[in-house]
């Protein structure tokens, strides 16, 4: 699914990534790496194999777009440092794209650790007329890409059918990305008339 915003082209991917074609920039939000390990460290036996799933999906997304840059829109790591960081180091080493991080509320790992991997950290980023942040924010003359919310949409149909799907949530000057992380929840939003909702339906993105 392609979208044009301010004459720029953006591609929405069903895994939850958004690709800015002109800049060859891949935006990914709320991966929450390390969450599974964090739980395990505290005695909650979440299946260990789930750790690898995030990396597998990241690889799929990167090989699909082969971006020049990857920008994580916050909450890259769920919590304090744990051994999943080593897996992340490996992933960074074998990924050819440049990686940058816009910090989110969960990102409490020391910035030096990221610097060692040549990953710069920004509180926010402005590229042309576009603002990249973690928390939703409307700013004059800018279009915002952000995360944090883990948006989902509720649908209903004849015969009292109901459905809940993760989505890209676009209002007039802002697009909230769905959470990429596998082991994360969603928060249902109520769209109003001016909002556009792009739901992730299995392996496609569908405009509702």
């Amino acid at each position, binding site marked *: 699914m392609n979208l044009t915003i301010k004459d720029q082209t953006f591609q929405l991917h069903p895994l939850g990534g958004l690709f800015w074609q002109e800049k060859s920039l891949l935006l990914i939000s709320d991966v929450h790496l390390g*969450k*599974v*390990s*964090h*739980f*395990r*460290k*505290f*005695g*909650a*036996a*979440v*299946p*260990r*194999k*789930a750790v690898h*799933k995030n990396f597998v999906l990241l690889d799929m997304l990167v090989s699909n777009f082969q971006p020049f840059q990857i920008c994580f829109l916050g909450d890259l790591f*769920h*919590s304090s440092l*744990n*051994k*999943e960081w*080593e*897996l992340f180091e490996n992933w960074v080493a074998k990924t050819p794209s440049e990686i940058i991080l816009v910090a989110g509320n969960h990102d409490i790992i020391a910035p030096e650790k990221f610097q060692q991997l040549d990953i710069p950290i920004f509180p926010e980023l402005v590229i042309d007329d576009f603002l990249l942040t973690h928390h939703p924010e409307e700013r004059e003359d800018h279009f915002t890409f952000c995360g944090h919310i883990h948006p989902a*949409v*509720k*649908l*209903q*149909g*004849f*015969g*009292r*059918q*109901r*459905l809940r*799907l993760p989505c890209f949530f676009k209002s007039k000057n802002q697009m909230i990305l769905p959470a990429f992380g*596998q*082991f*994360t*929840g969603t928060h249902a939003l*109520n*769209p*109003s*008339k001016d909002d556009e*909702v792009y*739901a992730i*339906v*299995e392996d*496609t993105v*569908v405009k*509702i």
Partner: protein
Amino acid sequence: MEGKHGLLNAPTGSGKTYALWFPIVLNYIKNNPDYRSTHKKGLKAVWITPLRALSQEIKQSAERITQDLGTQMTVGIRTGDTSTKERAKQRTTMPDLLITTPESLHLLLSSKGYAKLFKDCTAIVVDEWHELLGSKRGVQMELGLSRLKTVCTDLRIWGISATIGNLEQAREVLLGPATPQLENSVLVKANLNKKITVKSIIPKTMEKFPWRGHLGLHLLEDVVPIINNSRTTLLFTNTRSQCEIWFQKILEKHPEYAGEMAMHHGSINKETRLWVEQAIRNESLRAVVCTSSLDLGVDFAPVETVVQIGGPKGVARFLQRAGRSGHRPGKESVIYFLPTHAMELIEASAMQKAVLHHAVEDRIPYLNSFDVLLQYLTTLAVSDGFYPEEIFPEIKQTFCFQALSEDQWQWLLNFLVMGSQSLKSYDEYKKVDVEEDGKFKVNNRAVAMRHRFQIGTIVGDATISVRYQKGGYIGSIEEYFISKLSPGDVFTFAGRNLEFIRIKGMSAHVRNSSKRTSKVPSWMGGRLSFSAKMSELLRQELYTAELPKAKQSIEIQSLAPMFAKQREESIVPQPHQFLIETFKTSDGYHHIFYPFEGRAIHEGMSSLLAYRISLLTPITCSLAFNDYGFELLSDKPIDIQAILDNNLFTADYMLSDLQKSLNSNEMARRKFRDIAVISGMVFTGYPEKGVKMKHLQSSSELLFDVFKDFEDDNLLYQQAFTETFEHQLEEGRLRLALERIAQQEIVWKQCSRPTPFSFPIITDRLREKLSNEKLADCIKRMTAILNK
């Protein structure tokens, strides 16, 4: 007791508390002849009660005995309500007789040096064993007893149970199959011929009586003379919200009761509840609207009459409630049945037969509850640690784990230590350590503390305490309800109108309001299902609809207008008939099936049928069910003829079809929620600490999916399915029901509008969903829920 173990079958109010306290105290006197002058300190007996509300009462009767016999024995209570100061005091000097709950007993097992504490304990009494038996608290009790049998040098185990269908089994579960304790035990039945009179409240005009509903307020005025003619009346409701509404409505219509009426349910604060209980004893109340919170124990002599509002769904429960009145040996019990909708009158009539024949249900004990076992093993690891070779034989003695294999045992131990079945270098899983001599021990203080907070097998939704802004605790409410309120909204709780101000930490701040409101918190109580016996009786009653009037009960007679309406477009089925109705409304196409087998069976059957239909044709439908039948609601008509032609009600391949049906997946998902919490995989947070623990909280929903994708051989994941089939869907009964249907003639009625029978089902909002269409196809027909 005569040195024996056993089970005492006695109804409430028969002096059972004395019957067991007495021998315990006498035993002490016998072994300590100079008991009047010297007092040997230390724990001598434990009394387990499922409800902490009962502990005061039990304490008083124990104290009466110890004092009357001139001993210096002390009696203490240890439950969730006991203050930390009191607990610390108990740790240095235990009372001689301790009254506690299964959870608090396990908390004692999680404290260091517990073995010494229990060494001289000579008796354990498990009160209201029937309440614990069919739940995981029963398993918890079995495990606790298995340890105490070893730790206490000379122990007697006694249970007290109301009448249930499987009393013999209840004794076996309590003492352990093939144990010396069971060998040396007795089953004592207190034979009190208590007379119970059941009276139905029959609406004066059937025409205006609703076909559906669950409140029963139509008959409010009929309750007033009952209250007036009796010293004290208890009005039992099935849910807490129903309780709130009835309380409010009675006061609204009859302000003269103000000050003479009270409300009692589990979410109201303890002080208020205790006050209400005391007031009942003092005869200062005319009426109390209550829920199952007043089902058990506690002698309320002044209660003369009981009113049951809405179907109680179980004979045992109905008898128990009836027994709350005339609560003295030999006195007659009177209970009124107030139906909330027309179909419930059939239930009222069936209930009378059930009471007459004493057709009481079985309580089915759990098997292989690995979640409870993991919790128990962690408990032992937290206190003094355990050696597997010592604990395994003890666990094998219990009823629940009699079939536990060596492989499963090894799996559980691995899971405790590694959180999986193999070791990986990057893994930092931390819970139980294995020490050099092979002892399993928790050495991390934080792990131990989190575990202590999690002990228990009752999993509820997150609750939030409701407080006045200036302080003052009113009670607790499900977070789900509060999350739907905005500041300024007014809701009814604990009989007051409260305005919601804000959420702070884990409490909701409110102030009194004079505004009227219709918002009443709904608590997600489990919906109960009819037992096999009750369903059978219900069908028998229904079949009498075709008999001459003289042979019918008054309830059935009064339903004549409804039966007439039902016959306009459909039929009232007879024993050889199986009724199917189809019609269309603005909601969609309704397909309704009437097996009259009870809610649980209908849940399984609807899921099974929907799955089988989906094999014939792509379909999306929602399922609803009650005790009479079930509905498949779809956005297009389902071909009933195809269902019949393809013999979709067959009992062949039932289990494999059920397993494949998407819906059993959903049910297992809900079961898994509890399993994840009980086994310690999901941490629900410290009370009051709330947000700070967010990093460790996750929904078990997510966890279920992760297990499905990555570890579907996990014993806990599989347990969710076993529980679904055995306890929820009652696989065995479902098969019998299908075989019965196979013998029946199928009557398919295509109606132009909903029939009286269908009404309670189609208006049910709690629905299951099933779909095998491609998601994208479904979505084309759906629209987003827009802001109003």
